[in-house]
């Protein structure tokens, strides 16, 4: 695949396997060794780079894990490594790390600098919480993170107060947080011969490989060479989230960060953003897509479990037409879906019903954040007074598929919220699941845990009703 992009301050036209990991391209072909190989699966952040793209004429930057970033995704974009940040003097981010002793062995340091710099370049508010969120996927084995937190406080003080949010790039350049050439990047990107936006109408072949964020596909190294690789991010409107005719439309290309940012989703499903932080780290949230998480079909897939209870319809492009499938009927068996080769999920459509709505997501893993769950569960209730008019329950890690708990959900409908129905539905839930023992926990544990997570839904529901 021929791609055209800007690497730091240099425009490149190269021919590359679109699935080749960006990390390897940077280290092996460009000799940019600030980008470190730590784990090769997006778990440690040592390889963090910044990726800038023009969306409707606006330049957006984000920090991403280059080890699982397919090279084809670079087309038409600005890729930044630490070499492209370094100026004659240390940036305020670099200086804060030096001053606070936030460096021991130094191997993870470039990744941290890139994550924070990438965050400063994004459109997020500069707060301590957001700075820490931006490095939640960067592992440091030496410092215990406290000195890094102290450095973050210093950065907040220096950059947070000195920045003009209307023109962050110029403002950051003025603070020497980035070199001056960044100010010319928007114009330069417009001049690239990047692939024109693909129309979702263009027909796929049987062997077409659609890549979302690539965050799962590249974990095992680059996939088999494929002559027809297409990137979801090149498809027009596929990451749009909008509201229309009692439906919320969530494009399958929406990233986890898009979900966090969505006013609509947060309005209807308060708390959804908080749950997203449990699911993945910023360097993954920035690229991992909803559609990708669904078709991965992992029985513990967080987004699948969460969206199952929103009772949506999947809109699937099939040949030249479009077909719809109820999401609760989409998963057939372990990694078996109602999806044929060449088909593509375009969006998920969430119906909005009138009435009081309660929505909750629970997840327990060894490490609270960014770990695969032993068990997760979601619930969505529509209520009239204390009476449940509609209820949807789901759970992950307890069946061969992300499980929509049909029996339990149906049984609850029409019941009044009480301790008794909670205890009764837990029994029904126990009959619906079939967990196996694995690295995430024994089957007994998963049963007990789900029992407790269902309780947690009800405890939160009760609190909310009061």
């Amino acid at each position, binding site marked *: 695949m021929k791609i055209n992009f800007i690497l730091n301050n240099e425009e490149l036209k190269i021919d590359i396997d679109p699935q080749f990991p960006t990390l390897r391209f940077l280290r092996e072909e460009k000799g940019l*060794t600030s980008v*470190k190989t730590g*784990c090769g699966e997006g778990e440690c952040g040592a390889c963090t780079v910044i990726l800038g793209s023009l969306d409707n004429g606006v330049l957006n930057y984000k920090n991403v894990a280059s080890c699982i970033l397919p090279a084809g995704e670079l087309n038409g974009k600005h890729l930044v490594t630490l070499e492209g940040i370094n100026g004659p003097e240390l940036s305020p981010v670099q200086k804060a790390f030096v001053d606070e002793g936030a*460096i021991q062995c130094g191997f993870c340091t470039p990744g941290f600098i890139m994550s924070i710099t990438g965050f400063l370049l994004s459109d997020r508010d500069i707060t301590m919480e957001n700075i820490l969120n931006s490095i939640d*996927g960067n592992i440091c084995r030496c410092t*215990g993170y406290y000195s890094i937190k102290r450095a973050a406080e210093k950065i907040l003080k220096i950059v947070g107060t000195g920045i003009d949010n209307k023109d962050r790039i110029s403002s950051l350049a003025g603070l020497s947080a980035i070199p001056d050439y960044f100010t010319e990047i928007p114009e330069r990107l417009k001049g690239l011969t990047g692939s024109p936006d693909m129309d979702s109408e263009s027909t796929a072949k049987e062997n077409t490989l659609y890549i979302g964020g690539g965050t799962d596909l590249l974990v095992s190294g680059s996939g088999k060479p494929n002559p027809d690789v297409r990137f979801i991010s090149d498809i027009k409107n596929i990451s749009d989230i909008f509201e229309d005719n009692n439906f919320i439309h969530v494009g399958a290309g929406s990233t986890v960060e898009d979900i966090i940012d969505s006013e609509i989703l947060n309005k209807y499903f308060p708390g959804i953003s908080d749950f997203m932080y449990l699911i993945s780290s910023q360097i993954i949230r920035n690229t991992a897509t909803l559609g990708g998480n669904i078709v991965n079909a992992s029985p513990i897939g967080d987004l699948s479990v969460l969206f199952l209870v929103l009772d949506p319809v999947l809109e699937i492009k099939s040949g030249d037409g479009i077909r719809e499938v109820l999401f609760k009927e989409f998963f057939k068996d372990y990694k078996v879906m109602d999806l044929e080769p060449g088909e593509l999920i375009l969006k998920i459509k969430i119906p909005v019903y009138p009435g009081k709505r309660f929505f909750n997501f629970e997840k327990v893993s060894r490490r609270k954040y960014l770990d695969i769950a032993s068990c997760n569960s979601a619930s969505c209730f529509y209520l009239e007074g204390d009476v449940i008019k509609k209820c949807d329950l789901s759970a992950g890690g307890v069946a061969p598929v992300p499980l929509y708990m049909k029996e339990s959900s149906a049984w609850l409908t029409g019941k009044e919220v009480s301790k008794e129905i909670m205890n009764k539905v837990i029994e029904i839930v126990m009959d619906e699941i079939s967990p196996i023992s694995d690295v995430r926990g024994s089957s007994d544990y998963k049963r007990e845990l789900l029992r407790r997570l269902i309780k947690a839904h009800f405890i939160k529901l009760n609190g909310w009703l009061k």
Partner: protein
Amino acid sequence: MNNNEVIKHVRGESQFIDDLKLPHDILYGTVLTSEIPHGKIEKIDLGNALSIKGVVQIIDHHDIPGENQIGAIIRDEELLSEGIVKFAGEPILLILSESLDSGREALKEIKVDISPIPAITDPRESFRAGNLIVPPRTFDYGDTDSAWEKCEIVAEGRVESGGQEHFYMETQASLAYPVEKDSVKVLSSTQSPTAVQKTVSGILGIPMNRVEVDVRRLGGGFGGKEDQATPWAAMAALGAYITKRPVKIVLSRSDDIRNTGKRHPFSSDFKIGLDSSGKIIAYEATFYQNCGAYADLSTAILERALFHATNSYYIPNVRVTGISCYTNLPPFTAFRGFGGPQAMFVIESAISKAATEINMSARKIQEMNLLKEGDVFPYGMVTENCNISATWKKLEEKFQVEETYKKIGEFNRKNDHIKKGAAVMPVSFGISFTNKMLNQAGALVHIYTDGSVSVSTGAVEMGQGVNKKMINVAAETLSIPSSRVRVETTNTTRVANTSPTAASSGADLNGMATRSACIGLVKRLRSVAAKSMGVDIDQIKFESGKVFNTGNGQSIMWEELIGKAYAERVSLTSQAYYATPDIYFDKTKERGKPFAYHVFGTALIEAELDVLRGVYKFNRVSIVHDTGKSLDQQTDLGQIEGGFIQGLGWVTVEELLFEEGGKIITGGSSTYKVPDIKFIPDEINVEMMQDLKNPYAVLGSKAVGEPPFMYGIGGYLAVRECLFAAKPDVQLKYDCPLTPEKITISLM
């Protein structure tokens, strides 16, 4: 302040082995390892591996020109297996190829037929089968047998502690160059350049003076590159020696986790006896050390476990036994604390159990039994400058321990879904290699004619800040700005016969040698200055890069003095050597003074448990740590915080799992989780006690690398307290890490 090193790090310009520019004829080494935990290699079928483009050679044990042996203490480990494999991940073949990808392709082509032999993963089973590295060792002090009668309460129990993956951010890496026909130069990410040199020399069958080992820096070590870096360096050297081309070996993360050793899991029994006041009368423990397939450093680690069996307490009657058991797991190895954490976890568990039975708080028992000046450890060493109570008291005053406990009690009376708990964790850790021989170090200091200074020592920089400390020692001793001093790579041709950078001793030993070398230079320079200024040498004073005649206040610049010394043909190079005095240990009696001194400290850890979900978090940790006069406060603070979090990880989130048959389950970074920034306690307070100066290390300082790790044990104890608050009759085994699964099951 010398910032060169950290400035390179924040700019991404510091180079680790994998970052070095490679010569055009470089070969990549890919290692084929056993998939089977225990078995006999029946047949190796290379398939089409050798015809894959780029594959140059495939090496097996027959190609080794010297001795196929890498065991450091006990010679029981082959570099490339000769027929019997004893753990999944044991190297069998070395593939050399012109690209990384062709090596990986070759790997898939090769079929190794191994007939399995039953594998053992449980150290107690190995013990029963008599599968030990060395006979068990026992430290016996007082009269334990007759002491039980005097006890009001006797508690017994079993304790398990899991292994721990080092997860150094830079995986094992080495790059070897052939030098002319008969020598090699090896760049290795190792804590033990000399161990690499010696092993390579043995493998190649050439004298040590034909093997040069050079180490610039490590991307983390934590003990995981003390012995476990050696095989990969030896394989790279072997490849280079045979092919006469440079060879690089860098492990992928999953290969690193699968193929290399980690912290030893321990399975232990204890018996503890107290009088009614809470005084500990007697303590007995047996440690079954899970050593994995080969001895590695296991016996030394077990010895330190025995030394730290009683942690910070004086106990008049003690019998502790350690048993090093072979199993079919990766060869477990050094990891920060070196057996100390495992042993301390046992005594703290014993106190916790006793506290429940005597209905007294564990904190009271801990405090009542703290070591006092002049108390004797079960191995005969008398405490000296014993600061454990000083740190305990300071913690109580500064961080309101009593009040914290009271507040937690009040909170728990009012709340059901969340329960809080706290624990205090005292630590007394002995400093010196327990192997007396290793307590030696050398330094080589040059002053160049422009006045800049070059320091070489045997210490390896792995993030612990030893280079910065060496710079501070040299700058202070020479009375020049630290910006004039540079620390060189650790290189076996400049400083020979080095001990590993381990046992927290890097700065102690090498700092002493550096100081001594610098003192030698000052002495010579003082004469030059006296002669040049025409005064007595007593009147010469070095200060802030100048040399003063104290008689009249006149001075010359350091650089000028160096010019004069050179002109006078005075040597500007000094070599010095240091050996820790007055340490000894008699293994036949298990008595002696193995340590130069002890490091002390006490921590308070506060936790809260979400009773419904079985998950917990840490709210606050407060640490009072005896640093001596710190050589670099920021560095020491980083060691205390970082060590603590690593220890906390060991007892909480870091779960190393193996299948019954011996294959690793948590073999990747998606299954083995280390602490992330959101895991750590919300608040940390560290108080360094610098007024407790130490006469036994350089410039009154103290070693700092390992001791803070063990504060983490307090995290386990604090969560346990939460559990007791949630369910007073909770049945919970003493078993770390304390995962949400174990908590939830215990709450059922």
